[in-house]
């Protein structure tokens, strides 16, 4: 069967570039016409991690994901997923856009939305049949939403809408998932459920990349951290990267926010935390 935009590779082109990495971004610069919103991004995310992209509002987190997925055309630089161009790796990528990016009054049911995740695999002219339905129902069950399959999406709570979006990504059966703020505006119970689903994916060997807003939970949810503020501030495994100094550099002059973060950052540390002023540690996360 033919999917949408079947990849075509010219023979002289080197097929793979950094195939050992789930995501490889090199020299990426993006501008919406004015000053660059992403500046010279070099980024590597290994396979099988649960990675957080963290940074203040307007840092370019959504833009980074969109340029990785080819939704925004960069001024410079390139992106490889499992060593492939996005178009070639597309079938291995799952995407959960920011919830606010669609009209939730759209006349579709939760099940309809989840089935949209299968359209790419179906290709042109084929309609989702009984098997697609069953797959979508199974994904809804995975996120605990099977009872809401035939609800119109505007009649779902914010957390339920978010879970429907995640179910749509699950049916994509991808190897790497990009989620833009999946935990925004959901209650603690739903957040735990979402994190559990994402951890299951990671434990099954998938790579999960999440735009995340809550600094408090970075260490308990994630094992890889990318701090972004137009440039890459730091990246690496969470224990080395999640430092007061790095956070201060990422969040710049936003003192109030830092003061809030200061307490939990220093206090409930289980092991001896490297001193944030340690110069060696400062660069630990830098690539």
């Amino acid at each position, binding site marked *: 069967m033919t*999917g*949408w*935009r079947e990849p075509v590779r010219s023979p002289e082109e080197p097929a793979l570039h950094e195939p050992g990495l789930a995501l490889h971004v090199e020299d990426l610069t993006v501008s919406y016409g004015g000053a660059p919103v992403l500046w010279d991004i070099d980024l590597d995310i290994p396979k099988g991690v649960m990675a957080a992209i963290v940074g203040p509002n307007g840092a370019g987190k959504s833009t980074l994901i*969109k340029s990785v*997925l*080819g*939704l925004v055309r960069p001024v410079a630089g390139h992106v490889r997923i499992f060593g492939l161009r996005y*178009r070639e790796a*597309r079938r291995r*990528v799952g*995407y959960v*856009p920011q919830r606010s*990016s*669609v*009209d939730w009054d*759209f*006349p*579709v*049911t939760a099940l*309809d*939305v989840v089935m*949209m*995740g299968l*359209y*790419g695999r*179906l290709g*042109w*002219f084929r*309609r*989702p049949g009984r098997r697609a339905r069953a797959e979508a129902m199974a994904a809804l069950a995975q996120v605990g939403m099977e009872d809401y399959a035939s609800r*119109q999406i*505007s009649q779902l709570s914010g957390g339920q809408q978010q879970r429907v979006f995640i179910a*749509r990504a699950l049916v*994509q059966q991808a190897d790497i998932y990009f989620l833009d703020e999946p935990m925004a505006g959901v209650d603690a119970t739903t957040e735990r459920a979402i994190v559990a689903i994402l951890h299951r994916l990671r434990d099954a060997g998938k790579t999960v990349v999440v735009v995340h807003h809550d600094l408090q939970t970075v260490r308990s949810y994630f094992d890889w951290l990318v701090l972004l503020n137009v440039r890459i501030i730091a990246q690496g495994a969470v224990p080395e990267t999640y430092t007061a100094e790095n956070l201060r550099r990422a969040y710049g002059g936003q003192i109030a926010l830092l003061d809030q973060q200061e307490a939990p950052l220093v206090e409930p540390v289980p092991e001896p935390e490297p001193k944030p002023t340690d110069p060696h540690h400062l660069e630990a996360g830098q690539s």
Partner: protein
Amino acid sequence: MNPLALLGDYTIQTVAIGAALLGAVGGVLGTFAVLRRQSLLGDTLSHAALPGICLGYLWAGARQLESLLAGAFLTGALAAVTVLVIVGRSRLKTDAALGVVLSVFFAVGVVLLTRIQQTGGAGQAGLSSFLFGQAAAMLRGDVVVMGSLAGAALLLVTAFWKEFKLVTFDRDFAAAAGLPVAALDLALTVMIALAIVVGLQLVGVVLMTAMIVAPAVAARQWTHRLEATVLLAAGFGIVAGVSGAVTSAAAAGLATGPVIVLAISAIVLVSLLLAPGRGIVWTALAARAERRRLRGRQVLLTLYRLAKEHHDPAYPAEKGTLDAYHGTETAGVLGRLEAEGLVRPVSHPPEPTPHWKLTSKGRERAEDLASSGEERR
């Protein structure tokens, strides 16, 4: 006049078929236009068709539908491109750009139309009917042209149904999944332009946008599936189109556009008011029912609590106490609860005032409510 006799008339048949085609294609593509928040684009495209109609007339030298519609389509497309360029190159927002382009193209159209009418000519009489539409001017051959355009558009929508659905709902996800979103956007815009072209002769450039927007708005009220919305919009479009066009053709001299628009407006009005789940009246009634249900529960729970405090399951509570406790007159609520067999009025001598107590059924209900934690105070 007898409607069946009307349908036997050759002219009226022609008009009815044309109007049905217009209603169907307007409803289907209008649903996409409205869901994509492109209602204003339809208005601009239809107004921008006027200069094209005039140019088509000048080019063909006669009132020949194919060239008129080709002209309409071309200037419509030019207007759409102009809007895109303005939005891309200036700080103007889309709605402002649409408004500017609409005015300019329509003004040019009116100037051309006036010129043509002044120079006179055998066929120019039909041209001004493109302003508000004229059903009686339709020929059987016109129906064939309209039918081919409508058929092509509907075929495309059917063939690429799931792609159009996805790109309309979630453009970013569609693009990430590999859909050529720009091409699909273009296809939808072109088809909306086609739908407008189909309707120009019947409804006219000024009111054509109503045939795009109104059926979709009405249909959206009644269902929460895209498939059903599209079919219902087509149905509403057909009903309004046929009834309006036939009325106008039968009562010679009535401009068709306004009559059709009145018909579809009536459907919209009814839908906005009455549709279950979304209609204004329906929502108001549902809210009132919900308020009553809540008040009923509260009064029931109050009676239950009073009975508990007095260690008397059949404790007769004075109505004044209940009123004071809820800060409102409770007679209506008590009456409804009584009708459900949950409470019963009792006299409590020597006090002359009315008293109420729970029935055993009411007590069970109150216990359920209290234990399920649904009590709100």
